[in-house]
């Protein structure tokens, strides 16, 4: 066990989290990263034509979705939400199966391209490609719970580029009017493909917009999962009290290019790309856990080995799954009578 240093305290117990909780959060971040890295490998190996990455967003995603109650709360995520989807209950195998577009892929049965997650059984709304549409679905889910008087909180996430869509405005305004139980999470990585924040967001703050809708907007270090958890837990409690929405702007880094079809060296300063690694949330959290005496090198190595085995096994099982059958491609445009 590392030596105890009071200055290195995580402060997690004050947030109601146990040691096991924070290690589990770390494990979720590691698993999401490992799935993501495996996707890139499979893409480079020609097994997957396209991937869109969440690397750099893991702390924000695990932290903001951690307070959400599985199979009670709902999420309308976006295409970088691998860590969020895992926290909500999708498995590494589900994610890999979706990327391979297998016939029994839980997200779409091979109908959607990679990165379009969704799982009715995990209360995760199916993702589409037009950005920002999902915010209205989260608002509608929250409206449904409000109409029925249910204890449910919806969360939705999107990038700062998407924050400029009209649907984000329409959704936030309506949620503000009725104090709906919804949490808006903007994962601001500073880049909308090739266009930087200063060309995307007037005023440079997404969180500041919340003021106009009559609910709190909070900017948080998206590299710190506990900071993200703290604001999301407060947002969750606020929503459950009936006090309404919160907009969380988590400042994150995009460690990879926008997608496997993009090359960020064409529009980002090489020095900046190199410096991104210093802001990687995974070593950041790993080091904090060690400093706080909660993680040893041995335990970290064991956890990573366990995750690697899980990824290898998940990939093997996913690859063995059947491909979709073209004879089924015409089905389920509309509801069909039970066979």
């Amino acid at each position, binding site marked *: 066990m590392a030596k105890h240093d009071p200055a290195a305290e995580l402060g997690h117990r004050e947030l109601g989290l146990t040691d096991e909780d924070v290690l589990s959060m770390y494990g979720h971040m590691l698993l999401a990263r490992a799935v993501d890295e495996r996707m890139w490998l499979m893409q480079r190996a020609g097994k997957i034509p396209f991937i869109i990455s969440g690397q750099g967003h893991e702390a924000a995603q695990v932290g903001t979705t951690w307070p959400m109650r599985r199979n009670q709360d709902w999420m309308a995520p976006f295409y970088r939400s691998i860590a969020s989807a895992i926290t909500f209950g999708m498995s590494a195998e589900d994610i890999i199966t979706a990327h391979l577009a297998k016939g029994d892929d839980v997200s779409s049965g091979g109908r959607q391209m990679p990165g379009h997650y969704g*799982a009715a059984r995990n209360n995760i709304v199916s993702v589409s490609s037009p950005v920002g549409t999902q915010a209205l679905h989260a608002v509608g889910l929250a*409206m449904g719970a409000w109409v029925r008087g249910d204890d449910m909180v919806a969360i939705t996430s999107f990038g700062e580029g998407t924050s400029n869509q009209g649907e984000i405005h329409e959704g936030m305004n309506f949620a503000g009017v009725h104090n709906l139980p919804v949490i808006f999470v903007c994962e601001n990585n500073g880049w909308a493909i090739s266009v930087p924040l200063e060309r995307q967001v007037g005023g440079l703050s997404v969180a500041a917009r919340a003021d106009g809708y009559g609910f709190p907007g909070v900017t948080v270090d998206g590299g710190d999962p506990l900071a993200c958890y703290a604001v999301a837990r407060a947002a969750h409690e606020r929503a459950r009290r009936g006090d309404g929405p919160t907009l969380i702007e988590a400042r994150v880094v995009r460690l990879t290019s926008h997608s496997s079809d993009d090359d960020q060296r064409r529009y980002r300063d090489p020095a900046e790309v190199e410096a991104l690694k210093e802001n990687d949330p995974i070593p950041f959290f790993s080091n904090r856990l060690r400093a706080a005496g909660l993680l040893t090198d041995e335990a970290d190595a064991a956890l990573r080995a366990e995750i690697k085995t899980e990824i290898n096994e998940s990939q093997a099982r996913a690859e063995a799954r059947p491909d979709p059958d073209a004879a089924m491609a015409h*089905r*389920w445009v509309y509801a069909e009578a039970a066979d």
Partner: protein
Amino acid sequence: MAELNILEAIRLAMDEEMERDPNVMLLGEDVGRKGGVFGATEGLWAKYGDKRVLDTPLSEALIAGAAMGAAIYGLRPVAEMQFADFVYPAFNQIVSEISRLRYRSNNTFGLPMVIRMPYGGGVHGALYHSQSNETYFTSTVGLKVVAPGTPADAKGLLKASIRDPDPVIFFEHKKVYRLFRADVPDGDHVVPIGRADVARPGKHLSIICYGYMRICALEAAETLAREDGLEAEVVDLRTLRPLDTDTVLASVARTGRALVIHEANRFGGFGAEVAATIAEQGFESLDAPVTRLAGPEVPGVPYHHNLEDWFMLNPAKIVEAARSLAAY
């Protein structure tokens, strides 16, 4: 049996469905205290409260998108677009999301929801309060599209739409809201989606129509019978998607002539689909080319009554087209 106009029949359908199923809710602009700009939801806010009859901000994308979220949650939302002309901000939600959620999720999600769309001209609404834009929706796979022309069908089809497991776009022609009263069966009167109605039997030609055009076609058929001895069969499609091909083809088999009419402009309009279907599947029955009579190729209904009258289809124009077709 009650004598109701179409507006009252629509209101009654929503009222009965809300009473029957607590998951049914209404949302839209001015649907609450005011009862809708046309009065379709009058009295329902007082009866069901302001959560189940919910006034929204002027945000059509929100109306459609929140209805979708609520439907995912298990409600059966009935959304109102104040005018079909104002649906376009919601187009992304309807086309990208609502129409394809079931398909893209491999049947793990479904959307039982209705979007009511007051449409059509002849009401001095000009370019932005008169549109018949049904073709955008009939060409979108994953939607069902309904357009009733009688009070009984309005009630029965709206009830069927609310109970349907898939999204239904429900077109209500504004000109007929209060145009006439007719018998509407009491209680659980449900008209199945996807079935056309032979509104008047005939043997010389088939007039295929929907919505307000049913009334115009029936009036034209009276004139044709009286003045020309021509018996026109009037087929009211009632549902545009799925199209009741069987009823259309059976009618054309009886008459050998098809006149397809709609208020929306002709090029690429819904009549093109009906005409192509008849040409492909009913060719042997035809004694004359399938003929379309439709709105003119201008971007919208112009305002002044001289101009609006020029735009609108009416019984006289239908009579004229029917005479030409019969004489072929």
